[in-house]
């Protein structure tokens, strides 16, 4: 298991653990079991752009470090 922030560009992770304090992220679809793909990082390396539930969402590294994922082979 790795942190969401450690995902490489183009890799798809399956969310394993999300802090329940991140209620708004949960409601945006970042729930355990969801697939999340890192599309790109912003020009200066932060924030990240992900594809989740068929739309693209941008999150900061700080929040990505509170989410654990498993890389989908």
């Amino acid at each position, binding site marked *: 298991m790795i942190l969401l922030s450690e995902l490489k560009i183009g890799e798809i992770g399956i969310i394993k653990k*999300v802090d*329940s304090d*991140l*209620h*708004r*992220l*949960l*409601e*945006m*679809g970042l*729930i*355990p*079991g*969801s697939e999340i793909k890192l*599309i*790109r*990082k*912003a*020009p*200066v*390396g*932060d*924030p990240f*752009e992900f594809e989740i*539930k*068929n*739309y*693209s*969402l*941008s*999150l*900061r590294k*700080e*929040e990505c470090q509170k989410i654990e994922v498993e890389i989908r082979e």
Partner: protein
Amino acid sequence: MSEQTIALIGNPNVGKTVVFNALTGSKAHVANWPGVTVEKKTGKMDNITVVDLPGTYSLTATAIDDLIARNYILEDSPQLVIDILDATNLERNLYLGLLLKEINVSVIFVLNMMDIVRKKKIQIDLKKLEKYLKSPVISTAAINDEGISDLKKLIKQELKSSSLKDDRVLYDEEIESRITQIKDILTKYDQFQKDDNLRWISIKILEKDEKVFEKIREIPDGEKIIGDIEKLVKKEDRILLASARYSYISEIIKNCYKSPRNHFSVSGFLDQFFLDKYLGIPIFLVILWAMFEFTFQVATPFMSLIELIQEKLGVLIINLLGESLLSSFLVDGLINGFGSIIIFLPNIFLMFLVLSFLEDSGYLSRAAFVMDRFMYKLGLHGRSFVSLILGFGCNIPAIMSARSIESEKDRLVTIMINQNISCSARLPVYILIAGVVWRENAGGIVFSLYLLGIIVGISMALILQKFVLKSERSLFLLELGDYRFPTVKYTVIHMWERGREFLKKAGKIILVTVIILWFLQVFPLGSSPNESYLYTFGKFIQPIFSPLHFGVIAVIGIIFGFIAKEVVISAFALMLGVSESLPSLGPTIFMEFGSSPVIAYSFLVFILLYTPCVAALGTIYQETGSKKWTIFSVLYGLGLAYFMAFLVQLIGGVYF
């Protein structure tokens, strides 16, 4: 029969505004939601009142937009809620739909953007969707007016037979049983017996919703109820509920929604360019430059035209009435008053035109994405950047645009430092004075003022967060929606609505003050400029500014600049008894500063940094809802301006 009300709700960027306009015809009434300053739009569809709720992803207690939307639905109980969904992105859009089904209210689901759905060859089974959602579902492409008349018919039909059926969407047994248990506990208390949203309250309790808990604490047995309930709430319930909703949604999607594999992603394609690792920032800078070029260059002929009309009108009136008190009032008071508002309209409208264009096209959220890292260093949100940039046009809409920033702290800091961003109203003062004093180097001087404003703003942001507003960083959530070609119609509507807001708010104040200015300058009747009430007042305050070497006339300029910064020049013109054009006025003003470039520059620094105009202050008060912050913004502006102006003179060697 009582008046019927319906409410529009939906995620941001689903075309909600377009549906609203299509339903009501674009005559919207814009006001604020009580207590907060999020914009509230209402309109009329025949006799039915249509309320446009803020765009929201969910109905949590932490985000201001969510709270407004849910409080409206719960407390004002509209007869019908219309949930507008982006049909190309149903999965996330349906989440809000399911949340609505938890509330005791009739819902119509509108699948918007069907034109894009067809282009993307997505197939949606509306009949099946209706069965899953247990509410009427209709499809539209509001941008082409497609499906709007059917939607109107459906709304009227639903309003007639708005008998509520128990048609909730159910979660799994374990959760449902705990929801029922909480409901049973609550029904024991009088306060809840008649509440027809017990199911919603129970679910929110499971989600540990602060506002619901607060409400329960307020009632007499509150603490006891909470004690009973808390045993039923598990730590991971928020995750369980969100997962339950999304798994129900995936079932719906599996059965009702077919999208071709690997369909072309508009945003993915263009973002390879606009968000390129190396070119992303230069591209953003070029777009920013183009935005400013457009705003200021295109405005020039319109401003000339306004000036010309103003001048001709003045001459005409004087020819008709001769030199009298009345003609002086009409020309110097009224026409100049209107003129000083209207002259900035081209700038303001053009600025809003580009902004609406960038926002509607989907680039503005990319700009926030590209710039977030820099704003993050200042403790702010990527969106603050856009708001600060807007400040270059006018601080009033800029302060209003800070609404889109979710965290209270970020919003407050963005509002507070906005006044340091040099707005376009200050520009005429710079141009006039710098043009006379520094001639061909005036551009550099003006640029240095803009830069100083930015540096001061950044420092203020850091200082405010270090000492005054200590709080956690806010959550950064930014959807990068599909790029779209903005339609002329909606770009213009957006521009007009925003520009009109400025006119209403600032226009009256500016007009009234210019008339007061004229009055104070003319009376007592028959006096020379040095005997007028205005001069007496200026002379009274002037000693405060004598360390800065500002004379009485400069002080009068500052006083009236408090009302609107562009009035500084009118004040000079009135006091010195010269016309407002550059050739005659500039040199006279320079003489006022003892022909010292350093004092002139320090005056410009003072103009840049001191308290924003009354209209902006009014906006700050409205947006923060706090007298404390409004007063703070006056005081820190004055203090900072005085200090920096003094510093300039110190460094410039005026004292040695």
